[in-house]
């Protein structure tokens, strides 16, 4: 495949990758599950960006959504419940050449993984983090998650979830070094694609909260949003998510929001169900720029350094 580089020189790629190169096995999610759509979009972006499959890693925790790496033709790490982010950060730490994607769930990321979520935002390592927020624990069959609406009847709260749901957006916006926060919906592939693509293009930690339908266990949670798009607030801005006209027509409720305006982002996230880019600051330093220093040091230099270390203790 041929491609023009930014400096107009001709880049002759040895391989062209098709969707199939990013695909492995048959996705075993329920019919109608929003995860299917997200997977497809991720694969399309990989294809459109011609990511090298061997340099791409999909990292996840445990949950329905965390099965995503198994359906990708890239490298993958399907680890422990709640622990996708430390693993992903570790992968990136000394291998900044790798393209790291994270698939996690509302339970995986916002419940058991809370501590890692907060601190990973702070590290701001370059990775695309997709939170499949279906407001429920899917894999373990319908328990309350942090984003479960109050009153929702789950198996752990048959009398109704007792707490107001956590708002992952306001929390994320409050973390220092936050650099990219967006929200999108699985049922609009266009917005989904554009949002994840923007997240992937951002150098830094991009958190995308995806409202994701689980027709089996939380069917009713997003129905009203699906049926009445006016309950969503579409964020518009030239620096925001690219929006086709059709989208603008679909979502009557819109707000022009500069993704550099943190204060406004916070208010929007606090008071609405926004769809779009809440915050984007391309200038936050990335931790891998520190952590990967010295990774290519030659053996001779290393031997010199080691001997110097010994010298320090010589008597």
């Amino acid at each position, binding site marked *: 495949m041929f491609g023009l580089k930014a400096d107009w020189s001709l880049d002759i790629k040895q391989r062209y990758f098709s969707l199939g190169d990013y695909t*492995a*096995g048959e996705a075993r999610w329920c019919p109608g599950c929003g995860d299917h759509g997200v997977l497809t979009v991720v694969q399309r972006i990989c294809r459109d960006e011609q990511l*090298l*499959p*061997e*340099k791409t*890693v*999909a*990292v996840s925790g445990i949950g329905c959504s965390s099965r995503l*790496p*198994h359906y*990708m*033709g*890239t*490298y*993958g*790490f*399907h*680890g*422990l419940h709640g*622990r996708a*982010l*430390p*693993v*992903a*950060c*570790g*992968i*990136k*730490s*000394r*291998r900044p*050449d*790798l393209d790291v994607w994270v698939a996690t769930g509302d339970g995986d990321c916002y419940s058991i993984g809370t*501590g*890692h979520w*907060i*601190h990973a935002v702070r590290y701001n390592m370059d990775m695309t983090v997709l939170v499949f927020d279906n407001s429920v624990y899917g894999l373990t069959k319908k328990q309350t998650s942090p984003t479960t609406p109050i009153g929702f009847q789950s198996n752990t709260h048959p009398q109704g979830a007792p707490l107001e749901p956590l708002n992952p957006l306001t929390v994320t916006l409050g973390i220092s070094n936050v650099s990219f926060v967006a929200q999108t919906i699985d049922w609009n592939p266009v917005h989904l694609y554009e949002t994840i693509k923007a997240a992937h293009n951002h150098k830094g930690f991009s958190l995308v909260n995806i409202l994701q339908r689980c027709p089996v266990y939380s069917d009713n949670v997003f129905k009203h949003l699906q049926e009445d798009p006016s309950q969503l607030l579409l964020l518009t801005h030239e620096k925001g998510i690219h929006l086709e006209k059709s989208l603008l027509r679909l979502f009557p409720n819109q707000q022009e929001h500069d993704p550099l305006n943190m204060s406004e982002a916070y208010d929007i996230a606090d008071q609405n169900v926004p769809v779009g880019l809440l915050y984007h600051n391309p200038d936050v330093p990335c931790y891998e720029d*520190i*952590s*990967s*220093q*010295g*990774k*290519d*040091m030659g*053996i001779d*230099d*290393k*031997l010199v*350094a*080691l*001997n*110097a*270390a*010994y010298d*320090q*203790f*010589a*008597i």
Partner: protein
Amino acid sequence: MSKPSNNLQMVENSEATKVPVRIDEHIVEIVSDSGEGAQKAGQTFGTVSAKMGNGVWTVEIIPAEIKPPARSPAGASGIRIRLGSHNMTNMGDAADLVVALNEQVLYSRIATHAYKPGTVILLENKWITDPDPKIREQYQSAVAEFRENGLIVHELAMEDECLKLTPRPRLGKNMFVLGMLSYIYSRDAEKANHEIDLTFARKGEKVVHLNQQLWKAGYEFAKENLDYWYEIPPWERETTKPLIVTSGNQALGLGVMASGMDLVSMYPITPATSASHYLAEVFHNIGGFVHQAEDEIAAIGFAIGSSFAGKTACTITSGPGLALKTEFVALAVMAEIPLVIAVVQRGGPSTGLPTKVEQGDLLASLYGEPGDAPKVVIAAATIEECVHFVIMARKLAETFRTPVILLTDANLATGVQPYPRPEAKAEWFASPIDQSPWDKGVDPFQWNEETGLSPRPIVGQPGGEYVLTGLAHTTESKVAYDRESNQRGCNMRSRKLAALWSTLKPPEIHGSPEGELLLVGWGSTLGAIEEAVDKARAEGYKVSSLHLRFLSPLEPGLEEIFSRFKNIFTIEINYSDEADAPLITPGNRRYSQLSILLRAQTLVDVDCWTNVHGQPMQPGLIYDEITRRLNAMKGES
């Protein structure tokens, strides 16, 4: 000043000829409130002694509390230096000579049995004229009590002497003490002053000069006022290799660097943290990186991620941190991720005794994870091994595609010793990651049925794309719930230990290969055990010892070795029920950790002798136990 009436060699007889008394070794302590520089003085004393060719072991005395009040037993801060004409492998038993800057701190030392009748105490005497009558009274009653207990107390006006040179004697007294000790042990003046120079150079000429003056004053003061004058000839080493002096935690750091590790990912915890502190200072010089994670779970997760991506990684922790890492350790076993987990053991369970030594994490290392999680567990027995075992651990981790737990403990971590300078070898470094195309015909877990080993694709290798998972899986790393796949995976992971085992040699026996009594140890107790065995053997006792470095798999040949001894017991710093304690019977007795492993594997009646005093094992106590048991056996037969 009264002459000492102790059981040490005394200087009296030598005075006539004006030569120092030649001794084989001594244990010296400097004890004070914290902040008085005792540790600096002791370290310098140790370095000078090592440079003079002595065997040396130093260990810091650390106060138990964050900020204990001045002049309080809990506040004892200082250092012990054991030095002699042979290799020093442990902190020894009771001290021979102590310099104390106040009398209260001695109480806690006495409580840990650091002194014996005859121990010489050189005690600051300014308290006798303290304005506070309570302090005067405390001082006098303490001195009386110490003398009653057989300590030889010399009350010395050290502060007064220092005041002659500096208005702030609190800051300079340590060098005065160093001067005293330099006289007493005939230390090379030039070497001592060179160390002072090195220490204070940063603070300028004037400070260096003052401290050298203080040193000189101490030297002269001792010469004039004390009748102790010793000579400790250098140790006749076999090797003339250059030496380095480090603590066990610094050695761990050196091992990380010498092994070519890329990354250390940690969360602070005593007593492991100082290893990370050392690395944080120097690791970048060799291209490495120290990551301080938000907690221990993230620390190991980060290291695992890095290792998955082909970069060699290590996490360093202590008991409570190990507990938190349990789930990730199991993942590393299940998904065969190379990883070195260094555990610097402290007193447990729970927060326990954070600054004190224990060997209590052995069973948790082997069996901590739900399900079957075979992994390599090794333990360093010396400070030098703290360097080399990291290198070995990294190599084992990669060869056997497994986590390796490397156990050390607070005794090794804080002990300081000279030992041969390790080599710097390129082949010890991790090899650069392979990014060449992967043979698609080879599965990511293409186990060798015999050995369980398999080649590992590294992210970046085209054609090697696979998804690592903690679920049961096939050779292709596909999730599998069927009985065959799970059984096979378990077999293969376990088989790797058998494969490693078959490469190991039976352990060497210290002493004769057969006899009445065999002591089995592991970890930091090596020096103390062998010293005790040597002493008992010299007296004709038929005792030998064996020290294990591999705990999982256990080293081969144990049953055969055990069969050559009448009686076997382990020496460990961890808990076991005493056989004759109330309610304890053979049916319910809880054995120590290594003895459980040995009993289960060999079915030999391996007894145990342990404590959880939080203290390094003392050779004298082990010697006592050896003779007690052997004499009892004699009585029985």
